[in-house]
């Protein structure tokens, strides 16, 4: 699991570094009147990988923002139960989002969507979004039904 997480950090983090490089080059290019065509399309594709990685890392680390006012005052057992319910709600949400995203991907599959300038195909991007939601669903379900939650 740790190796997988490490790989995810480097892949999604690498995507962020690609965004840094492309956007910086685009900015310099524009200033010296040598525009980097399609830079926004590249960034939109790469940022999706970074966003997916970020969502998974935050979920793995139980880092999602919450209001702790009540939670901190509960007994350990009650807190455990509430956290399980929250994880179940998360699993429900991710399952619905997964269904919606997969539905659209299936509908547009034969449309061969691609970006305007560079022709970046959207199919792999939609697959990446679907996979991200699938992982989030599994992680949340594991949090709801597994032996221990945090």
């Amino acid at each position, binding site marked *: 699991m740790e190796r997988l997480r490490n790989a995810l*950090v*480097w892949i*999604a*983090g690498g995507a*962020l*570094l690609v*965004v*840094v*490089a*492309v*956007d*910086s080059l*685009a*900015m310099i290019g524009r*200033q010296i009147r040598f525009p980097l065509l399609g830079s*926004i399309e590249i*960034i*939109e*594709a790469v*940022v*999706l990988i*970074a*966003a997916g*990685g*970020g*969502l*998974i*890392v*935050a*979920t793995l*680390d139980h*880092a*999602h*923002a*919450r*209001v*702790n*006012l*009540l*939670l901190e005052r509960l007994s350990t057992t009650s807190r455990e139960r*509430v*956290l399980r319910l*929250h994880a179940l*709600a*998360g699993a*429900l*949400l991710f399952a*619905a*989002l997964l*269904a*919606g*995203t*997969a*539905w*659209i991907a299936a509908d547009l599959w034969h449309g061969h969507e691609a970006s305007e300038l560079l022709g970046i195909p959207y199919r792999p*991007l*939609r697959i990446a*979004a679907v996979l*991200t*939601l699938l992982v989030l669903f599994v992680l949340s379900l594991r949090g709801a039904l597994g032996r221990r939650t945090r």
Partner: protein
Amino acid sequence: MIGEPSLGLAGVVVLLVLLLTGMPIGIALGITGLGGLILTLGLEPALIKSGVLVFETMSRYELGTLPLFMLMAHLCFIAGASGDFFGFASRLFGHRRGGLAIASVAGCAGFGSINGSSLATAATMGLVAVPEMRARGYSDALATGTVAAGGTLGQMIPPSGALIVFGIIAEQSIGTLFTAAIVPGLTQMLSYFLVVALIVGWRPELAPPTPRATWEERIGALRRVADVGLLVLVVIGGIVFGWITASEAAAVGAAGALLICSKRGKLDRASLRRALEETLRTSGLIYLVVIGALIFAAFIAVTGLADAIGNLIVGLGLGPVATMALVAVFLLLIGSVLDGLALMLLTTPILLPLVTGMGLSPIWFGIFLVRAMEIGFIHPPMGMNLYVIQRVVPDVSLGRIFKGVLPFLTADLVHLALLIVFPAIVLALPNWLGR
């Protein structure tokens, strides 16, 4: 299918309850919004609408700005820049009575210009400035209160994470929001300077003067802060003067921070991994919140709740100033039980149409909302900055920290009132620059 404002109101109540149970904010927003959309539109349109929102949000160019600014902040932190702003300011002002408190506020503003978070600014500056002030004989209340309040500058001084999120939710230019935040951020900082001056004028024993730094020490401190300071000027100046977009500024900031880290010999595989991991974790948190907020906003829009509330309030005939004063009181009350991000995401879809319907600028509203959120960071029972500072100095009680922050809280309320009465404080700079 139902499409009534009453359903929207029920959704708001459900959301509030879920948030108070401690459900992750993004999940609470998403599940309430999705449930509401299913009730109003039906299952298939609700799923498809949510699916479209997820893909669009994850691949959104403007939202890529947020992780890049976070990466810049983490890299600057690794480069050791967090203490440099305070170090420079303390060598300039430290010899004056209350000078270290003023330096702390200035340090918070400086660190806030590379970091868009109140909590991170308070935590980082707390570690640097509070022990120094206590060691120099400052009162615990003044030392902790100054940094807890100063930390909120992190959210207002650009780049601000909260303003980026607001820009995405409200579909406003992030560059214009950053430009609009500069004068409120600076006036907020000046108001804190004034508070410190008044406190030490009234009770000089709370903040004894410290030895004057030599010019060599001051120039040395200036050299240490020069590279990061230059990066901040390029990033913020570039956005304000329209040379670069907010997204490009974030990329340039992250690239510059990488160079600074490398120049200072702090960049290796482990530190880069740490910065990337922290960035991904925080940005993942924000992405979920934004996805949830957009689904919730779509639900609220379908129910017509915002229009109904707008008509109700306009029907009272209070006028913009009194209405916004009322909204401010409402935000401060809700902000006492919800954290800032939840407050913003719950209220923006409802209040923004009301505000624009009264002819007020959405840019002004973004700054007003963030300012109200900031106040929530230092007033109990939420007052997250107070808890953050207490973790830094566990021997100082929360009550004492709150006593220290009280004068700053008063200044904050006056400042918020000034923003309502004089919207030009927010809008003059972007208007002048044609943004």
